[in-house]
Structure formats: structure tokens, C-alpha cells
């Protein structure tokens, strides 16, 4: 429905111009523009940052960078993304929202708006993504800090997200459970491991839609590090996650149901991770 409070539509030419429009007005940054329609607020000016050169995917030596206004479809269709960690990001994005919405929604929008049910955040936390944003000056922080520290996400402009390159034997997986193909997930989770000399040298598990926004399950990751990916190690990670991940009741599911999904999800993640490790080895 029409946004009757909106009186100005601004197409900035530079990042600085976009940011100054944001600070001077009762304004809101938009990219795909889905959220402003579904969740309107008091904003009277919209600043469409798709007028800025913030779209595109590049392969660098340290990983891949994705511009904030790149659509989810552009990400999942990118050959760079398909080649990254066995295609985990592309595979996951096929299950996010619907194709019609993925053609509009952007990576930056997913990360900034940060709905608690976001699948993208869960996956990117597990991958150890970093984000760049501008709030008068440039910042680069791990995605986990972007939520943990007091970043005022309504008064900044996310410009880029970086997914790190991993040397050697690494794999990741994403899993979600929802009632229909594009309903919001009742729970989602993602895992990343890097293997060195037969044991996990680095491991991250993130769980989201709990129904709170995704967070890294530190204890579950710690249960993996230093151990081989054996059934016993995975049992330990599941037990740690079930003990530590805070789950709650909401209209979609009970806390008990979600606690079961945490276990199911992590087991499914590691069966995918093992398949990918074997496939790449």
C-alpha cells in the first residue's frame, strides 16, 4: 500500500550525499525497497542507494566481496559465489524467500534490517563475514560485532560485505526448517569448519530464528575445535548447542520444539559438511 507519509524520494550521487540526506531528514535508506513497504515507519524521505555504485561481486585474494545493493538473485547466480566453499551460499539462498522477492531484496538490506528470522545473517555469521559501513567515516567490522556492539544501523550506510577465503580443507553448510517453501524459518542454522591434520582447527556454528536473531553458538564451536569430525564430536557440539542456545516460544513453535530442531539441524549440517569435505578432497 502507498506510503502516505513519504514526500521525498532521493537518489544520491555520492555516499557522502546519501549520508548527509540521512542525517538531515526524517529519512530512511532503501535499496530493494521491500521492507519500507512491509514495515513502514515515520520516515518522510527515502534515500535510494541503488543510485550509488554499490552493486557487484568480486573475487579478491582474501575472499569475495559483495556490494550492499547486490540482489539475492545476483548473489546466488554468480559463478564466483557458486565456486565459494562448495556453493554453500548459492545453495542456501535458493531457500530464502521466493524468487520474486530475491529479485528485489539485497544482501545489504538483509544484514541491516536484520529481521530475527534472517537466514542470510545466520549463514554469514558462521562464515565469519565482515561488513563495511559509512557513518561519516568508514568502518570495517566482523558481522558479529555489527550486531553485538552499539552500531546505530538506522543512521549508517552498509556498503559491502566480505566473505573470507579459507585455505586448505574447509566446508560449510546451512539448514533451515519452515512450514512451507518460503515461510519464515522456525529455526535456521549454519556451520563452518576448517580441518588441519585431521582435526577441526576452526569452527563456527550459528543458530537463528530462535526466535531471536542469529548468534554464534560459541560453546558448540568450541566443542569441535581440536577434535576430529567424529560422531562423538558432533554429539558434543549438539549437547553444547542445546544447553547454551536460548530458544523461546512464539506463534510458530514452542521452545521445546526449537530445542529439538537445534539438535536435528546441527546433525544435518554436519552430514552436509562431511559430504562437502569428501567431495572436495
Amino acid at each position, binding site marked *: *500500500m*502507498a*506510503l502516505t507519509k*513519504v514526500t521525498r524520494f532521493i537518489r544520491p550521487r555520492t555516499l557522502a550525499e546519501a549520508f548527509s540526506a540521512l542525517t538531515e531528514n526524517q529519512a530512511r535508506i532503501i535499496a530493494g525497497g521491500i521492507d519500507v513497504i*512491509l514495515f513502514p515507519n515515520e520516515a518522510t524521505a527515502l534515500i535510494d542507494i541503488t543510485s550509488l555504485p554499490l552493486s557487484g561481486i568480486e573475487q579478491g585474494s582474501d575472499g569475495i566481496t559483495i556490494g550492499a545493493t547486490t540482489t539475492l538473485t545476483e548473489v546466488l547466480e554468480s559463478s564466483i559465489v557458486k565456486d565459494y566453499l562448495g556453493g554453500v551460499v548459492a545453495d542456501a539462498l535458493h531457500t530464502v524467500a521466493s*524468487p520474486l522477492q530475491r*529479485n*528485489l531484496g539485497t544482501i545489504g538490506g538483509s544484514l541491516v534490517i536484520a529481521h530475527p528470522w534472517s537466514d542470510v545473517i545466520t549463514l554469514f555469521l558462521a562464515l565469519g563475514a565482515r561488513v563495511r559501513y559509512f557513518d561519516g567515516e568508514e568502518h570495517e567490522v566482523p558481522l558479529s560485532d555489527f550486531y553485538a556492539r552499539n552500531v546505530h544501523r538506522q543512521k549508517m550506510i552498509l556498503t559491502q560485505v566480505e566473505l573470507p577465503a579459507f585455505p586448505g580443507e574447509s566446508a560449510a553448510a546451512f539448514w533451515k526448517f519452515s512450514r512451507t517453501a*518460503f515461510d519464515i524459518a522456525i529455526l535456521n542454522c549454519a556451520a563452518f569448519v576448517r580441518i588441519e591434520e585431521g582435526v577441526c582447527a576452526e569452527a563456527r556454528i550459528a543458530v537463528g530464528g530462535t526466535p531471536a536473531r542469529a548468534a554464534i553458538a560459541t560453546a558448540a564451536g568450541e566443542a569441535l575445535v581440536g577434535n576430529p569430525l567424529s560422531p562423538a564430536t558432533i554429539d558434543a557440539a549438539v549437547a553444547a548447542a542445546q544447553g547454551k542456545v536460548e530458544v523461546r516460544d512464539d506463534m510458530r513453535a514452542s521452545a521445546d520444539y526449537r530445542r529439538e530442531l537445534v539438535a536435528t539441524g546441527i546433525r544435518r549440517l554436519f552430514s552436509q559438511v562431511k559430504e562437502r569435505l569428501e567431495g572436495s578432497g
Partner: protein
Amino acid sequence: MRIEMILNGVRRGFEIEPGDTLLELLRREGYKGVKKGCETGDCGACAVLLDGRAVNSCLVLAAKADGRTVTTVEGLEADGRLSVLQEAFLDAGAVQCGYCTPGMLIAATDLLNRNPHPSEEEIREAISGNLCRCTGYVKQVEAIELAVRRMEGKDV
């Protein structure tokens, strides 16, 4: 504010409010094939092609269509002839009440433009944002498969 777009192949200019959605603009201008269903991006009945990609027009601000190409279901036919896909929907009996049909056609057009030989799974994913409340999607999938065979030059 004033915007311009290529709408169904014709350059058009419109005076809009900055908060108007593309769905509202198109229906106001008489493109009633663009259905107003849920208005929350769930049903897909309002789908149009925006620069060739299928989107929910209820989730697009009209201002964002400025300078771009928009195709509604009315624009799928050429020279008074239905597209191969539209013919296939008729021949396969994929139109029941017809409400979801324009959105299905738009989503499937986007698919076939990019991927002329889709698997059944790819077809089902492509129309997963389009709700049909009459059927079980079988006829629509069959219609798209029929269009694929016809575009491959097979005699069906």
C-alpha cells in the same frame, strides 16, 4: 514526482507520489492483469518483469521503476499473438479461476528467458512465490514443460 519507464515496449511518463507502489500505479493506469492480491509479497499475483526479472510489484515503489523496463502480462503477447507460454497454459488446462495466472506467466517467462531447458525442480522453484488456490500446481508445471518442448521445436 515524474517518472519514465518502458512499459510493455512503449516509453511512458507518469506523475506519481513518492510513496506509491508500482502495483498501484499499474492498476490505476489500466493494467488490470496485474492482480492486487495479498499486498505483502506472498501471493505473487501482482508479478511483473522489472528489467526482465520477475518481481512482486506490490513490493516495488513506483519511483524505483524510473528509467527501467516494466512488462506486465498484457505485454507478453506480440503482434496480437499470445506467447508460446500463454498458449501452453491454455492448452494444458493450467488456467482454472485465472487469478494467479498472470503472475505465474511472468515468473515462468523470467525462468525461460534465462534457462530455456529447466528441470521440473527448477520450474517448481521459479513459481514458488506464486500461490494458486484452485489446483496443486501440477497443470502449471505441465504447461511450462509443454512450452519448453514447443520452444525446443518438438511437435506437441
